[in-house]
């Protein structure tokens, strides 16, 4: 029997998201940091790296994303909902929370439409890339399960004869 998840499992998820996003953001700082220094609080230190307060903001948003994932991808609170609808709701909430963080912590100027456009394009791009992978993984798992079931049925039938 599988054991139930503990707080440490969720903490591991938070730190994975946080670590990965910090890695990407630091890479962006190295590449675009100096040119975007005055434009965004994320690049306040230029190419020297991510400021500590931004790192904490990312830690909070990572925890919120894990919380949203728990809300939509466990049946503790929402019992009957299809997987595509759960995915859409989860992405909607993540998008909303990220937008709130962008405006509140001035990750980039709220009136800069090109920055918003880039944000939505990046979000859409990562969704377009990850969703088919998720679907393929699910299909492969279902195929594996049903092939194993067919093998079991054949075995049962041959022992009955």
């Amino acid at each position, binding site marked *: 029997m599988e054991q139930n998840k503990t707080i440490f499992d969720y903490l591991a998820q938070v730190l994975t998201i946080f670590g990965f996003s910090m890695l990407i953001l630091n890479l962006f700082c190295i590449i675009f940091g100096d040119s975007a220094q005055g434009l965004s609080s994320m690049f306040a230190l230029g190419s020297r790296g991510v400021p500590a307060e931004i790192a904490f903001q990312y830690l909070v948003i990572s925890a919120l994303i894990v919380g949203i994932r728990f809300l939509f991808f466990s049946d503790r609170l929402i019992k009957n909902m299809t997987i595509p609808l759960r995915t859409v709701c989860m992405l909607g909430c993540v998008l909303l929370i990220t937008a709130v963080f962008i405006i509140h912590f001035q990750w980039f100027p709220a009136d800069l439409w090109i920055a918003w456009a880039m944000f939505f394009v990046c979000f859409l791009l990562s969704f377009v890339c990850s969703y088919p992978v998720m679907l393929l993984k699910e299909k492969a798992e*279902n195929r594996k*399960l049903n092939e194993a079931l067919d*093998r079991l049925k054949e075995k049962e039938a041959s022992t009955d004869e």
Partner: protein
Amino acid sequence: MKIEINIDEAITDMEVVVTCSKLTPKVEKLLAALRMMDCQLTGKKGDEIHLLDISQIIYIESMERKCFVYTTDDVYESDFPLYELERQLTEYGFFRVSKSFLIHLPSIQSLKADINRRIRITMVNGEQIIASRQYADGLKKRLGVK
């Protein structure tokens, strides 16, 4: 209760004779256990007692301390608790998939991975049963995919 065993090498078919003054629940339970050894399960429907061939059973559900046996066409009540049925029927291709369900593996139509590492099981009669996360790993092991 007196138990008498006669061993005779000339006998090809084993015969069990139960002699009693009346058909009490205890005797019925004994008969049901004997029938199970003969690939049959006793199921009640109203006042009638039916003999069900184990291969006919699609799944068994436990609800409010009662066990219901589902075949393609009908539902019967069993006197045995689910854990007892699980113990007796495992060797006939039955598998426990949640606290309330015992399913006949050859009666599964398809399997689908569900959220939270659960498995959605569609039985041959179209009924959908969820294998809870706690039991889904065991089911995968039984199917040989883990």
